[in-house]
């Protein structure tokens, strides 16, 4: 009995020691004497969207570490305070308030998800703190909100890029198949909205659940139409199953996917069925294939190198790049503005020709995303399980 009690006590001690260690904040290197500039982050580090939040958190911390080791910003170290919203929008709101009121941050990076970002906008606008979101939805910056910026490409641009390809290749009739969640619905909305302008007719419109495991019924319907291409809008695993089912049903028309599947994981799970798929994607996935003349090549190479050195075993993803771009623009703006939220906001809005991971950013009072379609996306084709840039 006594042994048991001791064991229990021991366990409690170990667990509480573990908690203590993890809750300790990282201190900036001592050689920087200036007052630290505190920047907050809210990411979905755990939970269903952890594939976004984890690399974002890593990238943000890594960026601060590098800036501090190179002398900080005018002698001031950057201190980052990052909270995890677990993918829950209610948490995002609470944590953003906490960052503003308790941690007194100059700016906030995040949240990771579109829904979560949209729900913190009211607080941000009221408290007047610059926010650079890492979420995709076009609604975050359209219409423009004074204090809200974002770095990721929007699905508006992705659709534009695909339709550009269709027009160039004489494809006029398409079928769309989208996942029934926020990502797929937003994609569907854009696909339908931009079709008339590009002279494209959508002849079939199908959807699938995010956990469905068979799409042959939907594809059979599509097969019965005169569509010349299929556009699938979703995140893993649905698009991989669509690709496999198309092979099964021997559907011969080309399959186009969204940038949501632009990761090595997609090729891994779709296997041979991935070959021939065409999709728009950020340049990060084909860094080594970029021509030497590409201005982003150097930035991408550097990011890839430092990230994979700092986090051995993990590969850079496009998601971490969003937080990296956000931090880089904030850091650049801080050099001019100093620790003042309003001036910092103005400087972020003046960002010109920042060469980032996901494109070349030019912020204006009318455009708080600042990306243009040419630098933000390249069209890729999967050949023999490898990404290949196509023109």
């Amino acid at each position, binding site marked *: 009995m006594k042994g048991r009690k001791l064991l229990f006590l021991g366990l409690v001690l170990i667990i509480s020691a573990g908690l203590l260690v993890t809750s300790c904040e990282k201190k900036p290197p001592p050689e920087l004497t200036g007052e630290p500039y505190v920047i907050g982050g809210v990411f979905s580090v755990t939970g269903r969207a952890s594939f976004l939040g984890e690399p974002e958190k890593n990238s943000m911390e890594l960026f601060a570490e590098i800036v501090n080791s190179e002398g900080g910003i005018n002698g001031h170290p950057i201190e980052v305070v990052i909270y995890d919203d677990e993918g829950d929008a209610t948490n995002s709101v609470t944590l953003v308030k906490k960052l503003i009121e308790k941690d007194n941050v100059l700016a906030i990076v995040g949240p990771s998800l579109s829904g979560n970002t949209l729900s913190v906008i009211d607080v941000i606008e009221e408290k007047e703190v610059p926010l650079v979101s890492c979420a995709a939805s076009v609604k975050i910056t359209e219409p423009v909100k004074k204090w809200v910026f974002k770095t990721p490409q929007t699905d508006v641009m992705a659709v534009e890029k695909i339709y550009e390809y269709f027009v160039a290749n004489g494809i006029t009739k398409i079928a769309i198949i989208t996942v029934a969640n926020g990502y797929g619905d937003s994609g569907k909305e854009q696909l339908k909205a931009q079709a008339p302008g590009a002279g494209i007719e959508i002849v079939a419109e199908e959807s*699938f659940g995010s956990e469905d495991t068979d799409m*042959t019924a939907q594809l059979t319907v599509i097969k019965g139409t005169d569509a010349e291409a299929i556009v699938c809008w979703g995140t893993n695993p649905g698009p*991989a199953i669509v690709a496999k089912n198309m092979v099964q049903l021997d559907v011969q028309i080309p399959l186009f996917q969204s940038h949501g599947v632009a990761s090595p994981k997609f090729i891994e799970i779709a296997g041979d069925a991935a070959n021939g798929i065409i999709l728009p994607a950020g340049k990060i996935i084909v860094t080594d294939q970029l021509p030497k003349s590409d201005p982003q090549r150097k930035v991408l190479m550097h990011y890839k190198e430092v990230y994979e050195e700092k986090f051995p075993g993990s590969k850079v993803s496009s998601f971490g790049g969003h937080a990296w771009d956000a931090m880089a623009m904030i850091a650049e703006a801080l050099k001019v503005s100093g620790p003042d939220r309003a001036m910092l906001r103005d400087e972020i809005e003046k960002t010109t020709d920042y060469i980032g991971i996901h494109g070349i950013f030019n912020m204006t009072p009318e455009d708080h995303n600042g990306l243009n379609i040419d630098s933000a996306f390249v069209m890729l084709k999967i050949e023999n399980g490898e990404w290949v840039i196509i023109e």
Partner: protein
Amino acid sequence: MFSLFLYFFMSFFDQLLQFFVSGVTQGSIYAIVGLGFTIIYNSTEIINFAQGEFVMLGAMFMVTFNAALGLPIPISFVISVIAVLIIGILIDLLIIRPVRKPTHISLIIITIGASIFIKGVAMLAWKKDYHAATPFSGEKPISIGTAAITPQALWVIGITCVVLVLLHLFFEYTDTGKGMRASAINPKAASLLGIRVKRMVLISFALSGALGAVAGIIIAPITFAIYNMGVMLGLKGFCGAVIGGLGSVPGAIIGGFALGVLEAMGAGLISSAYKDAIAFVVLLLVLFMRPTGILGKGEMKRV
């Protein structure tokens, strides 16, 4: 004119055939998952909400042994089934048996807890990524008339049918099987007759663990494996089992297939946006009109 009509009719028929084939593929997955619920229900009258997790574990072990460690498919299959069978036994020994005053509802809630626990551990062990599993015999589709089916789907349908026959024989004709059913209907009376009720419950957890593993292993090449795959599969399998009549082995199979075919027909003929809604509306209709399910026997209570 007539030939045009005939053309449309034929192409419609072709589509219908493909919907049916798709539905049967999907239905066989629901059926084999539903069978796991049936076994535990048959011997304890509790619904094991960790059944979906058994399926997930089977798929994950298979991916680990076959794809990651490179063991041949038959060996990985056997090891994975044994591993999940042991987990099933552990669940009974560690969390079901120690309950002081077991009621059906408390045990059911405990299985929900077990399911959350297993999912959490699986997330840490296998991370949050999808894993691809190797199909048993290639991926070259097989044509059935104008419809096409993958070889793996044939494996799923075939193994489901074999399991169905074996389970039916087990529950109807062996002493252990009969003892398990008796323990569910009246544990006290069963133990007075010399049936070791606790052992029956243990066997049922082992068996449904093994069956869940088989389900996970054979469907993983179609669905991919991820730590949270058990939730939706468990729900749909349970749905199928209820439609067919909870506790009936053929019922679970018929219910699962019916659900799969209805979903595919609904997605193809009405709208893929309402696919899940169609399945659940059918479940409600069945429960309104025949609360015991298609093959379920009416409950009799003598006072």
